[in-house]
């Protein structure tokens, strides 16, 4: 009987507890949705690399390199982003996957923020990473909950830009 009363008490309290926690969750979502784009430092430009979530290629990373470099800048997991601050001028990037690589050149502009989206597209044996130019409107509409790439998945330079001490 005692167990029955305890179970009844939990059952009665559960809806109240769930209702009470709902506003907090919504507030958190709202706060995350209001992603504030940082201003690039004086004399610099910046690029926000991002990858939306989704089932397609979710297990694969999208490793971003400076063209010709052996060490990656960072690797985008599903739903993640990172910011790259750069001197103005043309700068080329590649993304690599098992089957192929994709490349893109940007004109980094002083004081400007540019957006690059990575997607994992279909391949014969596995997914292929693909980077393409994007814009702030698409970033905000398709990327509701911005999550920064983990610090240990960034080069030291990019880590310093995204996780300032």
């Amino acid at each position, binding site marked *: 009987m005692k167990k029955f009363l305890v179970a009844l008490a939990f059952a009665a309290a559960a809806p109240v507890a769930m209702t009470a926690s709902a506003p907090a969750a919504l507030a958190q979502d709202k706060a995350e949705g209001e992603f504030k784009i940082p201003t690039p430092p004086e004399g610099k430009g910046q690029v926000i690399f991002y990858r939306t979530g989704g089932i397609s290629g979710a297990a694969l990373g999208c490793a971003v390199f400076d063209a010709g470099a052996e060490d990656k800048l960072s690797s985008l997991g599903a739903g993640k982003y990172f910011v790259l601050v750069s001197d*103005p001028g043309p700068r080329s990037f590649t993304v690599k996957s098992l089957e192929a690589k994709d490349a*893109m*050149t940007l*004109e980094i502009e002083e*004081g400007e923020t540019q957006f690059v989206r990575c997607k994992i*597209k*279909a*391949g014969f044996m596995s997914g292929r990473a693909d980077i393409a130019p994007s*814009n702030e409107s698409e970033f905000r509409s398709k990327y509701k909950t911005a999550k920064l790439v983990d610090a240990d998945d960034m080069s030291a330079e990019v880590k310093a830009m995204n996780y300032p001490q």
Partner: protein
Amino acid sequence: MLLLQAAAPEITQSGENPAVDAIPAEAAPDAAPHTATEVLLPKATPVVIAVDKEVGSKISVAGEMFPIRLAQPVELDGVSLLPAGITGEGQVVHAKKAGMAGSAGELILAARYLDYHGRRIELRSFKFIEEGDEILSRGKNNVDLASATNAAIGPLGFFISGGNTTIAPGTLASAKTKNDETFAVPAETAAAPEEVK
């Protein structure tokens, strides 16, 4: 000479034709050495330009130059400094044709300069003036369709192509001046807006 500083300049751009074109910077001092005023157009002043040639992810190559035109006059405190219609060049920074597996064609452009009576007004920060969800720097992306096809009927989705992007002549874009630029204008022209106040 009075140098009008750009502490709080009112920079306006209108679609109307300017009533008075700016006096050529190099000609003004000779014509009226004692009545000309230097006006500073600060760097990062926004300008509206039009792409004057068809460029696209399929038809253009990186490095290619293309003609641009100033679509709206640049005015500072009511004084027209750069008239609409002056021409210059932009450059294709990146062009990639649409590919297999739904990947879209890509096109990234840069504004380089406007030519004003032989003087180069350098530009930067090219950006298409886009409406709605349109992304002119990218064609139609069919990656999701290709992935869904792969999941449903096997690797045929790999052969679904994305769309290319083509920029028609006359497409508007914004850019900014790269450097501070000074223009010599008749003193009475520069002073006119203040007299109205």
